[in-house]
């Protein structure tokens, strides 16, 4: 009896094991514990592309800076970002924002702030930053428009016109 029971469990473990790691659970998990799941899913595609990993492939910048986006960007920065980022080049919890729009492409920035976990798991530049800061940037649940507004706010901080 006991042996049959054991075989049943073993055979099911094998059965489910062979199904691979792409469950609905893996897709939705977005916290720190997702690291293992994401690594399991497939070997990182190591996007060396300076646009990062995410939906933004081609961001059109506008001149002059958009006042509406700047107002929204300020509000988002105050509530969701300023706890960890200074506007100077000084690191607080995360790196200071001064010069970020010169170091990174607009696409990389927008992909990073909207697709935080995948970027931290796979993008070489983001991974390197994580090793410096040792704190995973929280996914602050920014919409596409929010991300664009933050980019505009960063451009203003870098004296872009």
């Amino acid at each position, binding site marked *: 009896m006991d042996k*049959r029971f054991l075989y049943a469990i073993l*055979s099911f*473990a094998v059965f489910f094991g062979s199904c691979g790691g792409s469950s609905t659970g893996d897709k939705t998990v*977005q916290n720190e514990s997702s690291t293992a799941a994401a690594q399991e899913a497939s070997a990182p595609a190591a996007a060396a592309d300076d646009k990062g990993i995410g939906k933004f492939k081609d961001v059109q910048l506008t001149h002059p800076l958009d006042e509406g986006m700047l107002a929204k960007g300020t509000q988002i920065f*105050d*509530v969701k970002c300023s*706890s960890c980022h200074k506007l100077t080049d000084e690191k607080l919890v995360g790196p200071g924002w001064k010069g970020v729009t010169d170091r990174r492409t607009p696409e990389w920035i927008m992909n990073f702030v909207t697709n935080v976990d995948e970027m931290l798991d796979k993008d070489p530049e983001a991974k390197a930053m994580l090793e410096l800061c*040792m704190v995973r940037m*929280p996914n602050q649940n920014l919409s596409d428009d929010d991300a664009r507004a933050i980019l505009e706010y960063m451009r203003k901080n870098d004296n872009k016109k």
Partner: protein
Amino acid sequence: MKRFLGLFCILGAVASIQGCKMKNAGSVVEGDAASKVYVAPGKYDELYNFVSGGFNGQVSVYGLPSGRLLKIIPVFSVNPESGYGYSEESKPMLTTSQGFVPWDDQHHLALSQTNGEQDGRWLFANANNSPRIARIDLKSFRTAEILEIPNSAGNHSSPFITENTEYTIAGTRFSVPVGNEDVPVSSFKDNFKSTASFISIDKESGRMKIAFQIILPGMDLDLSRAGKGPSHGWFFFSTYNTEQAHTLLEVNASKKDKDYIVAVNWKKAEEYVKAGKGKKLKTSYVHNVWNEETHSAVSTKETEVITLDPAELKDLVYMIPCPKSPHGCDVDPSGEYIVGSGKLAALIPVFSFSKLQDAISKKQFEGEYHNIPVLDYTKVLYGEVQKPGLGPLHTEFDDKGNAYTSFFISSEIVKWNLKDLKILDRVPTFYSIGHLMVPGGDTRKPYGKYVMAYNKITKDRYLPTGPELAQSAQLYSIEGDKMKLLLDFPTVGEPHYAQAIPAEKVRDKSIKIFDIFKNKNPYVTMGEKNAKVTRKGNRVDVYMTAIRSHLNPDNIEGVFLGDTVYFHVTNLEQDWDIPHGFAIKHAASAELLIMPGETATLKYVPTRVGIVPFYCTDFCSALHQEMQGYLRVSPRGAKVPLKFGIGESVSAPTVAAAK
């Protein structure tokens, strides 16, 4: 000789049951049971199982078929784990007309329905001791509303609902005097009343309101069910103690061969209320509503209910005789059959709704009970299930026309057919089953597949843990002709009734965070630049933020003995499953657990001079241990200026304040 033989048979049966439970309970499990309940790591369960907590006052959520505990939802008891009932925002949820009540006894659950099917919007829960009904929002898995029920005691036949969630019900187990309450207990027959409260539910918001109370003769209303399909518009209550005893009920309420099932025509009641036939009665009760944008509850006092008197208002209430001290009173999926389960009866009567209508129109009454017509038993009976077992309690239904009844005394589930009333199968439970539950088994569209047993006695099922044991639950497959035991697992509190719903009806609506930009808490801190400490007299308000991995402010000075300090902590995170906690040394309450985007408030009264540490209690990041701070408490009158901040703003060395 025959009697002797009979006794021998019973002894034999008892011995064989004993034998299988004590020696090798595993032998009743079929070989493939493990595969039927195994949910692989990372996979989801098929069903949410909402289980009443009984004397823990909460609702627990299990996954089926695995039996894994997913959550305990705080409802009627304080929960130091999350700060429910301790945070300033949540205290009003547990307020009653008699003040703050930190505990209750939670018995039954009802999932909201649309057209007789579960819709996955809300879960209703009753408080038995201090009569209340709660509504839990299944988007947040939080208690959204608690309504107190006046003129009630022992809110047991509750919170069963109608098939479009028009009403949830509250019926009284204890009769009590209504109006003038200071009367001799021995005046029961003259002064004590039962009440059946119909609580309307707003279709959009789910808001509850007492629509009307039907004042019934003194007796004990036990359980209830709404009609459905053809019987929609009716509600059925089982009763005991129609003897109207007020002492030694064990004997005195078990004298009559039959008590009643009370049949209430609530559509008729609505007409009477609309026609102004209800009487307004002054009373006092509270209505507590949680606001998801202010992240806080408001408790409102109510002073009046509309009552209906069935002795005066005709065609409102009828009594169906039912043997003997019926407990369960369950309506089958078609809405035609009403099953009474007499705790002390040797058979299960099945009543027919169409015969009930016929008997009413033909006035086939056998008498009156306090001016309410009593129907002729034989005229409303569809049939009786003969020799089903000992101590029938509750009946649930599958999707194939079968009924499942729990038997407390003979400790078994008995499956029988609704049409021919023949017994099809029986399985032992371990031990002494109370409620049972088929997923959707109380709706017009049962999901079937499983029946759960919620047992009252645990004994040897699990490793011993001293005199107090977890309650045992068992999962059986009902897919085949024979019920098969699949799983045995411990539960918390004392489960009475439960509900189960296919996961997809709830899972995808579950919210992950609260939008910080919708946070309307009056004490929210919108970003760190608004973090501050203010003083007004002896009241100090700390507007604090939490984000991985610091609290702001994390250094606070200028607080004195005699002050009351309110920590309003806003979690600035917007990521799923990143709550922060907040605790401060020697706080005489609990911690706070603050969800992403939420604000919660802990009241703290310092009791001695010194440095008081505070910290985040929910492991949030690699630097969680660094998420900490200090409050300095000085003697009253000390010249310590109010000072607060984080990092550089509080890093400059200062001279210690002179006393």
